[in-house]
């Protein structure tokens, strides 16, 4: 059953994704698609450090923000093309990942979470108060769209969309490679049982740092993508509720899988937009969703799916056994 269905499903999704801009009529829907893309990248990046490596981080918006501001400021202050600023933003953000990872190596549980919270808040406060550089609450306007290559104008939403799809595809491929490797297994081992992982030869500090840095790197260039798409950024975007939204996406989709965060990102971003009229009630809903996920869906929707698969498989095996016994 599985292999064929997976291929068909995958192909269908691919076709849909590629054809999407032509199906869509309203610019608003394109915008949602692009924001979904941004959130997919954010969720995938958080997934590395929290989903695979098990280090719960609720300050992820910090890396997103650092990336956005770095990219915006670079392109506005120096004649640096977007394509370079994009990478520099990622590298700067990765460095911040190191800043968070290093002091928190020995921390677990609540201690770790508080530290990530504190880190996120500190970055937010810096973005808000370092007015000379970041223009504080007024934000940065007039950010340029990416310079065109091959004559493609990236102020155009459709072109930006395909750029985003390409980037997501590359990220997915790389993530699949790294999670199905010695590094990925080391992360999972750390998540499942840190001490056991250590006595098996896994250098905790090294792998935790790699997770933080990789996570921040991706979030960093996602920030750059965001900044050059909406072309205006302010500290309001990079707040705790955004970090929590990303956590919810990873949690509800399924930590430690690649498909999970994607589903979560799509679902939550869509939900947020659909419920835009509800205003403050959206936040109330966040809280409830987070709670119910924690209690009933700790492995997310993917976890539910896998559980269902196992149940179906064992039911099948049971009926095969029964059939054989009947035959005898």
């Amino acid at each position, binding site marked *: 059953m599985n292999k064929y269905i997976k291929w068909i499903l995958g192909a269908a999704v691919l076709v849909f994704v590629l054809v999407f801009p032509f199906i869509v009529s309203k610019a608003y829907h394109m915008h949602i698609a692009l924001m979904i893309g941004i959130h997919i990248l954010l969720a995938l990046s958080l997934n590395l450090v929290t989903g695979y490596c098990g280090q719960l981080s609720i300050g992820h918006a910090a890396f997103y923000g650092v990336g956005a501001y770095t990219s915006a400021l670079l392109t506005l202050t120096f004649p640096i093309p977007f394509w370079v600023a994009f990478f520099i933003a990622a590298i700067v953000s990765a460095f911040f990942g190191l800043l968070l990872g290093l002091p928190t190596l020995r921390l677990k549980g609540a201690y770790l979470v508080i530290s990530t919270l504190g880190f996120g808040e500190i970055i937010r406060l810096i973005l808000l108060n370092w007015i000379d550089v970041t223009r504080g609450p007024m934000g940065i306007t007039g950010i340029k769209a990416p310079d065109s290559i091959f004559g493609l104008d990236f102020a155009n939403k459709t072109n930006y969309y395909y750029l985003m799809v390409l980037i997501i595809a590359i990220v997915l491929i*790389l993530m699949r*490679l*790294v999670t199905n*490797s*010695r*590094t*990925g*297994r*080391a992360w*999972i*081992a750390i998540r*499942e*049982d840190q*001490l*056991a*992982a*250590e*006595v*098996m*030869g*896994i*250098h*905790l500090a090294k792998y935790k740092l*790699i997770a933080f840095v990789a996570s921040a790197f991706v979030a960093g260039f996602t920030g750059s993508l965001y900044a050059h798409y909406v072309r205006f950024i302010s500290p309001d975007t990079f707040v705790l509720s955004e970090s929590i939204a990303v956590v919810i996406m990873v949690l509800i989709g399924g930590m430690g899988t690649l498909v999970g965060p994607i589903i979560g990102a799509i679902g939550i971003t869509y939900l947020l937009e659909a419920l835009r009229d509800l205003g403050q009630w959206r936040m109330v809903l966040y809280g409830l969703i987070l709670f119910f996920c924690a209690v009933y869906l700790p492995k997310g929707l993917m976890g539910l799916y896998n559980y269902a698969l196992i149940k179906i498989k064992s039911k099948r095996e049971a009926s095969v056994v029964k059939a054989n016994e009947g035959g005898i």
Partner: protein
Amino acid sequence: MNLLQLKDLTITFGGLTAVDHVNFNVEKNQIFGLIGPNGSGKTTIFNLITGIYKPTKGEVYLEDEQVSGLRPDQVASKGITRTFQNIRLFKELTVLENVLIGSHCMIKTGFVDDLFGTPKKRKEEKLALERARELLAFFHLDTVENEMAGSLPYGKQRELEIVRALAAQPKLLLLDEPAAGMNPQESQNLMQLIFKIRDTGLTVLIVEHDMKVVMGICDRLAVLNYGKKIAEGTPAEIQRNEEVIEAYLGRKEENNA
């Protein structure tokens, strides 16, 4: 030739000396047993050897190289791996995944290889998978390689933990009460397993309470009581040792009182 040497190994926690100037050597290819009443410091010694604790005094040597003071992951890559008293398998991962993680030290890829899927990675991963499957087959666990480790019966879980520890191709294998909770048949199987392991060239240091197993497989024993070594010798010698008998029987009398 001495594979493992404990020299004056001591550790104190607060006011309590859990391990008190313990000295013994384990020769290559030996099956060496560490026994003693509960709380005598046996698991603590394991923790000291594997780097989980740092000794307050004294050292641990592996093939004349000091390993005490190293991080646990460094100790593992030097060639010492272990199982735990209360089974620390990755219960939510499959049997195969557990063994693959166990072989972490043996796989030679770096982060860059892993990220970009270099030919080196493909080769190493293939090798690792083959070795893992071979190991599982050797212990008759290959049929369940895709089962969740936590779903295996208790005896099989204990075996899997041993297999996982072997995946790192260690020189010295530390077994912490591997027979706990086993029925006589399972203990018999375990003993055969350990002999098989020794036959492949490994050295085994085992902490165990089940005296049938201990006397049945160990070449040599060291007996601990209140953190101190009170006797060392062959199983026959230990069984006749007065102090050992008193340590065990003395304890028994306390319990009956």
